[in-house]
C-alpha cells in the first residue's frame, strides 16, 4: 500500500537526514569529511542499549545518554586527532584518512568487546503500541522517530539562522581565518560542533536501532556510505540539502524495494550518487564553495 510505504519511508528518511546533518555540520564548519561518523552512529546505538539494559533506564534517558556519550566521543576525536592536523594545516584529505583510522578502531573495538552478533533494545523499554490512522498502521516507534527528528532539525535550523551562535558558525564555514579576525572563538566552536554533530549521529544510531530492532558493530558502515551519497547529492556543507537529501533517499530506497525488489536496495544510493555526480558535480543544491582558508 503506497501510503504505508510512504510513511515507512518518512521515518527512514528522517534518520538518514539526522545522520547527514551531523556529517554535513562537521564538513561545513570544520572542513573535514569525517568518515568515523558512521562508527559514532553505531556507538550511539550501543551506548543506549547498554545504558538501558544495565541501568534499566527508560528510552528517553537512553537517548539522552547516547547524545552526551557520543558528543564527548566526537569531542575527543576532534581534540586528539583533528586538532593537531588543523595546527599543521594539513591538506584536507589527510584528516579524512585519519578518521578512517578512528572508524576502524571504533568498529573493531566494539566488535571485540561486544561480539559481532545482533543486540536488541530491552523489550520493556520499547513500546509495541501502534495507532491506526486513516488506514495506516503507525507504530509509536516510527512516530517517535519522525517527531524527534523533525524537532531536532527545527532546533538546528533555528539555531543556525536566528542566533548569534548560528551566525558565527556560518561565518566559520565561509572562512575560519576571517571569522577568527572578527573575534569569533573559532576553536571553541569547533569543539561545540564536534560535540553536537557526534551527539546527533549517536541519536540517529539509536533511532535506526529502534526502527530495525538490530544493533550490531558494522551497522554504521552502510549508513556512512549512504550519508556520503546524501550529502553529495544535497550539496556538501548545505544543511537544507542534507535534510532534503536524507528524506529523498529514504523515499527512494523504500519505493525501490517496493517496486524493484529488495536486493538492489543498497545500490540505489550509490547509483543515484554516481549519476548525479556525473551530471551535476556540485550536487543538487550545493554551490561548490571553495573554502577560503
Amino acid at each position, binding site marked *: 500500500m503506497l501510503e504505508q510505504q510512504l510513511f515507512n519511508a518518512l521515518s527512514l528518511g528522517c534518520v538518514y537526514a539526522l545522520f547527514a546533518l551531523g556529517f554535513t555540520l562537521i564538513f561545513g564548519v570544520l572542513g573535514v569529511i569525517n568518515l568515523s561518523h558512521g562508527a559514532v552512529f553505531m556507538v550511539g546505538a550501543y551506548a543506549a542499549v547498554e545504558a538501558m539494559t544495565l541501568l534499566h533506564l527508560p528510552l528517553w534517558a537512553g537517548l539522552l545518554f547516547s547524545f552526551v556519550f557520543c558528543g564527548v566521543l566526537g569531542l575527543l576525536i576532534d581534540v586528539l586527532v583533528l586538532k593537531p*592536523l588543523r595546527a599543521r594545516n594539513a591538506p584536507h584529505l589527510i584528516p579524512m584518512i585519519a578518521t578512517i583510522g578512528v572508524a*576502524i578502531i571504533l568498529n573493531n573495538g566494539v566488535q571485540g568487546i561486544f561480539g559481532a552478533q545482533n543486540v536488541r533494545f530491552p523489550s520493556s523499554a520499547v513500546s509495541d503500541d501502534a495507532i491506526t490512522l486513516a488506514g495506516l498502521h503507525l507504530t509509536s516507534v516510527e512516530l517517535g522517530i519522525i517527531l524527534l527528528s523533525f524537532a531536532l532539525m527545527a532546533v538546528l535550523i533555528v539555531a543556525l539562522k536566528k542566533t548569534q551562535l548560528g551566525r558565527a558558525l556560518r561565518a566559520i564555514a565561509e572562512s575560519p581565518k576571517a571569522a577568527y579576525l572578527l573575534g569569533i572563538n573559532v576553536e571553541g566552536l569547533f569543539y561545540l560542533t564536534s560535540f553536537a554533530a557526534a551527539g546527533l549521529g549517536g541519536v540517529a544510531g539509536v533511532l535506526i536501532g529502534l526502527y530495525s530492532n538490530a544493533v550490531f558493530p558494522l551497522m554504521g558502515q552502510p549508513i556512512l556510505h549512504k550519508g556520503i551519497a546524501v550529502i*553529495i547529492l544535497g550539496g556538501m556543507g548545505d544543511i537544507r540539502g542534507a535534510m532534503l537529501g536524507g528524506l529523498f533517499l529514504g523515499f527512494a530506497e523504500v519505493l525501490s524495494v517496493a517496486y524493484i525488489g529488495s*536486493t538492489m536496495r543498497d545500490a540505489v544510493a550509490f547509483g543515484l550518487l554516481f549519476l548525479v555526480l556525473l551530471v551535476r558535480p556540485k550536487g543538487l543544491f550545493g554551490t561548490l564553495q571553495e573554502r577560503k582558508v
Partner: protein
Amino acid sequence: MEWFDNFWAVYSNLVLTLGTNALLALSIYLTLSCGMLAMANAAFMGIGAYTSALVTMNLGLPYPVALAAGMAAPGLMAFIIGKPTLRLSGVYLAMATLAFGEVVRIVVLNAESLTGGALGLNGIPQSTEWWHVGLALLLTVAVLWRLRRSRVGRAFEAIKEDETAAGLMGIDVGAHKMLAFVLGAMIAGLAGTLNAHLTFFIGPNEYGFDRGVDILTMAILGGINSLFGPILGGIMLTVLPELLRGFKDFRLVVNGFILVLIVLFLPKGIWDPARFRQWFSRSSRKGAAA
C-alpha cells in the same frame, strides 16, 4: 634446504599475498602520485578476480589468457567511468570512486548466475606460482620506475602540485589522469587475478570498502614519495595481522591506531627519501663539526 621446504609449506601463501598486496599498494600509488585520491582499486581488483576466474573456470582457457583478461576488464571499466569521473577533484573524486566500488560490489552480489552471488566462486584453479607473483611485481616496478623517470612521471608530479600550471606547460592533464587511473586499475586487476588463483575462493565482500581502505593504508603507511614506500606498506600490512594474531578481534583495532598515528606523526609515510636525506646531511654536518 629442508628448512626452506618447511618454511615454504607454512608460509607460501603469506609470501605470495605479500606480493599481491605490494601490487595493490603500487596500483593506488599511481593515482596518488598524480594527486588523485581514487578509491576504486578494490573494485578493480574484484573485477579482475571475477573475470579471470570465469575465464579459467567457465571458459576453460589457460592461465595466461585469464591474466590478460583480468587486466583488460578493469582497465576497460576504468576507461569508461574515467571520462566523467576524473573531471571531479579532491573529495568528490574520492566519494565518486567509493560509490562506484559499492555499486560494483552490489552488482556482483546480485548477479548470482554469473558470480555466485553472496556465496562467491569456489574451486578456482590454483594456478598461481611464486614466479607469477614475482614476475608481475618485477615488471610492474620496472614499468613504474621507467615512467617516473620520464616526462610522464614529471607530468604526474606537476599535476599533483598544480594542475592549472601543469596544463599551461603543455601537459594534457586529462589524458595523464586517465593513464594513471587505467594503469592503476590494470595493476589492481592483475593483483586480483593472482590472488583469486591462489586462494581458490572469492566472494563479493573481499572487494569492498574494507579492502579499499586497506589498499589506501598500505600506500599511506609506506609513503608515496618512492616506489619502495608502497611495497614496504604492503609488506607491513600483510605481516602485521600475523604478528598480531594474539590480539584476535583487536588486531584490526591496532591497524586503525597505526593509521591514525602515521597520519599524525609520519605524514609522508615510513619510507620518505626526503627525510632520509635530511638525516644524512644533518649527521654528516655533525660528523664534520666533531
